C-alpha cells in the first residue's frame, strides 16, 4: 500500500516548485516590460527636439528696421507725451524692463474669456502688466506637423499621428515650465484656430520670457482673432517700444491697414 501522506508531501513540494517557476517567469516578464517601457520613455525624452530647443536666443533687431518702426509708431499710434514718457522709462533702466503676465488668469479664466478689459493693461513704472485672462482648459487633439520655429534656431517637430501628443506637450510644460513648450502649444492652437487657447499659452510664454518675438506675435494675432483688436494694438505698441521688433511692426501695420483681420 502506498504511503499517501508521504506522497502528498512530495506532491505539495512539486506543486510549490512548479508554481514558483511560473511566478519567476511572470515576474521576469513584468520586469522586462517595465524596463522596456522606462527605457523607451527615457529615449523619447532625450531625443525630443522640443527639449533641445529650450534656450531661446535673444531677439536681434536691425537698426534699419528700427528707424522705420519708430517712424510708423510715432505717426500712427502713440501720443507724443505717452511715447516720451515710455522712452524715459526705458532709458532709465532698460535692463529692468520686464513684461510680466499675470498668472491669476488661471484661477479666473473659468468664468469668462470675453471679460478682457483694456483698462487692465497698465504701465506701472517700469513694468508692463498684461491683462488677466482666464485660461481655457479644454485641449483638443490635433496632428502636429511643425518644421521650423524661428529663423535663428529652427525647431524640428517630428510628425505625430495622434492628437494625444499636444496633451503630452502640455503635460511636459506643466512639469518644467519651459517657454519653448508653451510657445509651441500656442503656435499649434493658433494654427488650428483655437485662438483662446493660443492666446493663453502665448500669454504664459510671455510671462516666463517676455523677449520671445513669436510669442508676442501669436498673442497679438490671437487677440485680433478674438475681436480684441484694440488690446492687440496696445500690446504690440508696447512690445515694439520695448523690442523694436520688425515683425511686430509689420503685424501692427497689417492690423491697421486691415490686411490682418
Amino acid at each position: 500500500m502506498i504511503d499517501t501522506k508521504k506522497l502528498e508531501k512530495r506532491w505539495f513540494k512539486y506543486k510549490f516548485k512548479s508554481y514558483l517557476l511560473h511566478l519567476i517567469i511572470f515576474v521576469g516578464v513584468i520586469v522586462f516590460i517595465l524596463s522596456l517601457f522606462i527605457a523607451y520613455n527615457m529615449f523619447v525624452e532625450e531625443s525630443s527636439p522640443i527639449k533641445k530647443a529650450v534656450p531661446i536666443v535673444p531677439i536681434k533687431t536691425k537698426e534699419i528696421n528700427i528707424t522705420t518702426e519708430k517712424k510708423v509708431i510715432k505717426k500712427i499710434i502713440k501720443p507724443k507725451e505717452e511715447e516720451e514718457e515710455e522712452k524715459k522709462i526705458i532709458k532709465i533702466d532698460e535692463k529692468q524692463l520686464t513684461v510680466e503676465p499675470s498668472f491669476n488668469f488661471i484661477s479666473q479664466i473659468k468664468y469668462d474669456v470675453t471679460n478682457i478689459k483694456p483698462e487692465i493693461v497698465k504701465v506701472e513704472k517700469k513694468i508692463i502688466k498684461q491683462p488677466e485672462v482666464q485660461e481655457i482648459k479644454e485641449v483638443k487633439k490635433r496632428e502636429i506637423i511643425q518644421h521650423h520655429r524661428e529663423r535663428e534656431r529652427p525647431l524640428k517637430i517630428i510628425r505625430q499621428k495622434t492628437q494625444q501628443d499636444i496633451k503630452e506637450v502640455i503635460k511636459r510644460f506643466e512639469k518644467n515650465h519651459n517657454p519653448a513648450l508653451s510657445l509651441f502649444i500656442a503656435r499649434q492652437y493658433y494654427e488650428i484656430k483655437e485662438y483662446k487657447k493660443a492666446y493663453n499659452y502665448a500669454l504664459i510664454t510671455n510671462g516666463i520670457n517676455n523677449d520671445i518675438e513669436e510669442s508676442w506675435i501669436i498673442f497679438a494675432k490671437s487677440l485680433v482673432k478674438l475681436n480684441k483688436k484694440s488690446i492687440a494694438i496696445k500690446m504690440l505698441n508696447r512690445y515694439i517700444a520695448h523690442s523694436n521688433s520688425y515683425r511686430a511692426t509689420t503685424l501692427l501695420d497689417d492690423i491697421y491697414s486691415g490686411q490682418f483681420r
Partner: protein
Amino acid sequence: MDKTLFISSKEVFLDTVNAKDYIELDRISAIYQSLRESITKPLKMVLLYGKPGTGKSMFLSKLYNDLSTSTPVYMYKTPIIDEIEFFKILAQDMFDMKYDDQLNFTQFMKVLNSSNMKDTPIILLDEAQLYPDILMEKIRLLSDTRKVKFVITLHKTEKEDLIAKEHFKTRIWESIELENASSFELKMYIQKKLMKANCFDTANMFDEKSVNLIHKLTHGNYRESNKLIYTLFDIYESYLIKNSSHKFNHNKISKKLIEMAGIHIGLLND
C-alpha cells in the same frame, strides 16, 4: 465507491504480456493485419521495431496466439544467448527431438535440410537486440535457407538500428515500426481495457483532461501508462482504506492523484 472496484481496475494495468489483454485500436489493428499478411507471403524475416513500451512483445504474443492453432509457430520471449543452447532448444521444439549431446549450427542445418515439413515453421524472437552478433549472423543464414521464417522484435535505439543495418539489410522482407499512442488512442486503450474487465465506473472516470495529463506524463507509451494508472488506482485504494477518499470526486479522475502517481513512479520530479 467500492474498494474492490479500484483493486480490480488496478489489476487490469499490471505490466504483463498476455495476448488476452490485447486491445484493438484502429491503428494497431491495421498494423497487426499488415503483419499477418506478411507472414503468409514467402519471406525470410519480418522486423518489428519501436521504442520500449510500444507493444512489440504484445504484438508477438498476439501473433503467436493467433497462429499457433494453424501454423507451426515457436516463440522465445527471453533471448537464448548461448549458441549451442539456442539450436538445441530450437531442434527440440521444431522436430520434437531430444539432444543430449551438443548441437551446433552445422548440425542443426543438416537436420533442418533433411526435415520434410509441410508448413514453414515461424520462429518469433523477442528482444533480438540481446542476441550476440555471431548468433544473429547464424540466424540470418538460417533464414536464407527459406526452411524457416523469423519474426524478430528490436528496440529502436541507435545500437539496434546498427544491428538491423548489418544483419538484416538484405534479408528483411518487411519491417514494421510501432509507435506510442496518441492522446485519443490512449483514452480508447484505457477505457477498452477497463471495460473488458467490467470496470465500467472507473472507465467513465477517465475524461479527456485526465487522459491528456496521463499522455503528457507518459508520452503515450503503453508500458509507462500502464504503470501510472496502476499506481493511480493503488493510491485511490490507499485513500479508501484510510477512509479519506471523500476528498476526491469519484466521477472523474483527480488531477492531483495522477500527479502523485507520476511522482511515485518517477515521471515527475518533486
